[in-house]
């Protein structure tokens, strides 16, 4: 029986080394018809798409994680190995394998092809980036290669419209048959790497001529990028640009989102009767979800830069430059991107930790990511600094700016200290290998950037619409019920579950100077840190919102809190585990509630100790 008589759409698996243009080819084949999910039980992305060939045949295609070898050393490679060998119960064995190779680096890429060939599966070779190879003067005899490898060889240019045509034709020509069972993986390990490499050399002599190779332009770029002095300066300049963009370009769309959410809230406020339903919609759902959704522009701008730098080949160089520095506290250079992202919001930062292959390094990076000062802390910092720190110059610095800088620095310093301690306690086997490929530079491709950005946006919005929405509704229930009794002297939130919780928490927080007002505000602040500002407004029974609220709240808290309390709250905000969204992402990314709880626990302890010390020192210096 053939595939077509079965009426099943054939499944093609794209497989290749990292940096061979495999994902670009996948995007070229499928366009936007992609489904991105996770493989069951692990947080490795599973990308499936579909397309129809010009002959009208439908295909499903799987973009397998990049691999150097099927004798897997990373979780990504293990997935690739298991899918190819048909060892994953939840995954259909592919009908055919398309091996994607970088035509400018056959010496490395062909070894994987020869490995896979030993599994005896139907396969073909996509000779990708032939345009770059031709430009460099590398001549490859595709017909001879086809003969030597014993499989169809097609030339592709994944970044060019129509560059996939030869592949589509070859797929249509492929004979249809039942799924072939792969030979055992031991048939791969049976042959030594040296022997495989000898075979690669033999094939290369017969099929390619690199005598006119003009060489790799990347070397000249790397003269600057990896230069001991120029390299770090360039990296600092790029980081500065990214920061600048995240905070200034995002300002307008963020205001538009806030404005839009407020407008919908006001509309509902006018057209609905006052009652629990209106409160749920306006304050619970719109207010809560809006306060997280507002970070979407920052996340998109940040990911635009990350995808751009990744696509052009700069990111591994940044990791190279920072490896030594970050290695000092037991982090990998690759942790740089997740941590950078976390300055906007820890959620994309924790998601970006997926690029760290070593599971231990990845976990440490995830654990310290929320200590980077995310932009949700800024409204709170701004409020307290405006109320308590005099706006005057100290030497050449503004005192308020200096305090803000100290708060950022405290977060980074705390993160480094925690990483260092985790390195000591989690052990690991001492020296971690790096083995980081520095691929050739090339211009990022617009379609790949767009698809990558769209995926990020979708993941974030899905989270906002599901988990985060549910948490927001829960917090709204806690802050609304039960209502205030007749003749209440305090604002309604005082009598709610959140209020009771806040007042009960006062016992715990009194030693660090927090009164019941602050404690109550901390409860809804668990939804998103900056919600605490709004909650303080509710506690002090102010009716304004937004900027007006901050303006009228400033003198009020300046009057009712001591300086010691204010400083203690700042210290608390640097370290405290305050955003449930982050904890829920940690749970998903690590596949275990345990690490989310560890994180909450250590951050709580750190925040408490820091606030306690701050409060006591401030008191003893007369800040009471």
């Amino acid at each position: 029986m053939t595939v077509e008589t079965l009426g099943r759409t054939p499944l093609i698996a794209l497989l290749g080394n990292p940096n061979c243009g495999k994902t670009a080819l996948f995007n070229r084949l499928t366009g936007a018809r992609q489904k991105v999910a996770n493989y069951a039980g692990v947080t490795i992305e599973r990308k499936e798409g579909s397309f129809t060939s010009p002959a009208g045949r439908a295909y499903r295609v799987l973009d397998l994680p990049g691999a150097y070898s099927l004798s897997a050393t990373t979780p990504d490679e293990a997935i690739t190995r298991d899918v190819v060998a048909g060892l994953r119960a939840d995954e259909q064995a592919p009908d055919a394998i398309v091996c994607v190779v970088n035509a400018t680096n056959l010496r490395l890429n062909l070894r994987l092809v020869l490995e896979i060939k030993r599994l005896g599966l139907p396969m073909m070779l996509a000779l990708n980036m032939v345009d770059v190879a031709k430009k460099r003067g590398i001549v490859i005899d595709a017909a001879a290669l086809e003969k030597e490898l014993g499989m169809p060889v097609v030339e592709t240019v994944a970044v060019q419209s129509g560059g996939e045509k030869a592949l589509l034709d070859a797929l249509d020509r492929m004979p249809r048959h039942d799924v072939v069972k792969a030979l055992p993986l031991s048939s791969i390990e049976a042959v030594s790497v040296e022997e495989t490499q000898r075979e690669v050399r033999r094939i290369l002599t017969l099929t390619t001529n690199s005598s006119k190779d003009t060489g790799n332009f990347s070397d000249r770029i790397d003269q600057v990028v990896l230069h001991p002095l120029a390299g770090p300066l360039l990296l600092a300049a790029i980081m500065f640009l990214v920061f600048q963009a995240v905070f200034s370009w995002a300002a307008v769309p963020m205001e538009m989102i806030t404005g839009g959410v407020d407008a919908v809230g006001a509309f509902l406020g006018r057209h609905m009767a006052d009652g629990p339903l209106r409160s749920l919609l306006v304050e619970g759902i719109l207010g809560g979800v809006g306060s997280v959704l507002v970070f979407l522009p920052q996340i998109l701008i940040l990911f635009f830069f990350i995808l751009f730098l990744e696509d052009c080949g700069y990111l591994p160089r940044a990791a190279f430059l920072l490896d030594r520095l970050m290695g000092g506290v037991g982090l990998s250079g690759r942790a740089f991107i997740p941590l950078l992202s976390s300055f906007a919001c820890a959620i994309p930062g924790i998601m970006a930790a997926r690029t760290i292959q070593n599971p231990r390094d990845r976990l440490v990076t995830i654990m310290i990511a929320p200590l980077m000062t995310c932009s949700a802390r800024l409204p709170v910092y701004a409020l307290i600094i405006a109320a308590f720190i005099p706006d005057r110059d100290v030497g050449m610095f503004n005192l308020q700016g200096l305090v803000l800088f100290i708060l950022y620095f405290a977060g980074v310093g705390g993160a480094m200290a925690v990483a260092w301690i985790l390195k000591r306690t989690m052990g690991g086997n001492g020296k971690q290998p790096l083995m980081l490929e520095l691929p050739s530079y090339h211009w990022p491709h617009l379609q790949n950037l767009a698809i990558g950005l769209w995926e990020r946006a979708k993941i974030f919005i899905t989270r906002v619409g599901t988990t985060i929405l549910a948490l927001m509704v829960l917090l709204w229930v806690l802050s609304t019920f039960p209502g205030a009794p007749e003749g209440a002297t305090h604002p309604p939130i005082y009598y709610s579950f959140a209020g009771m919780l806040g007042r009960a928490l006062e016992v715990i927080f009194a030693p660090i100077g927090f009164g019941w007002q602050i404690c109550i505000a901390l409860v809804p602040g668990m939804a998103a840190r900056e919600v605490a500002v709004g909650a303080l407004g509710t506690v002090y029974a102010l009716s304004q919102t937004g900027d007006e609220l901050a303006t009228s709240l400033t003198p009020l808290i300046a009057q009712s809190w001591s300086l010691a309390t204010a400083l203690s709250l700042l210290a608390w905000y640097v370290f405290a585990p305050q955003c449930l969204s982050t904890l829920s992402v940690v749970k998903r990314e690590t596949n275990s509630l345990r690490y989310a709880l560890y994180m909450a626990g250590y951050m709580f302890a750190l925040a408490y100790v820091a606030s306690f010390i701050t409060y006591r020192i401030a008191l003893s210096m007369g800040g009471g």
Partner: protein
Amino acid sequence: MTLAPTLITLDALLAGQGGTVVHLAPSEVSRRLMELGFVPGERIRMLRRGMPGGDPLAIRVGESTFALRRFEAALVSITPD
């Protein structure tokens, strides 16, 4: 007259210097190093030594460039040019 080739480990290579892989010391990362192209007979070149302390190293092997830590590079014995 040819002298017997002197073996050194890859981490001792100076920036800009080339050589040929001769042997890999047995280790749990050796197979992976070979899979990345550090196979006996392959040409290599030290592109850049990191600073300070010379970690990590940027090494050209065949057509690819890899960043290795010094302890990884020390597993690879080479004959320098």
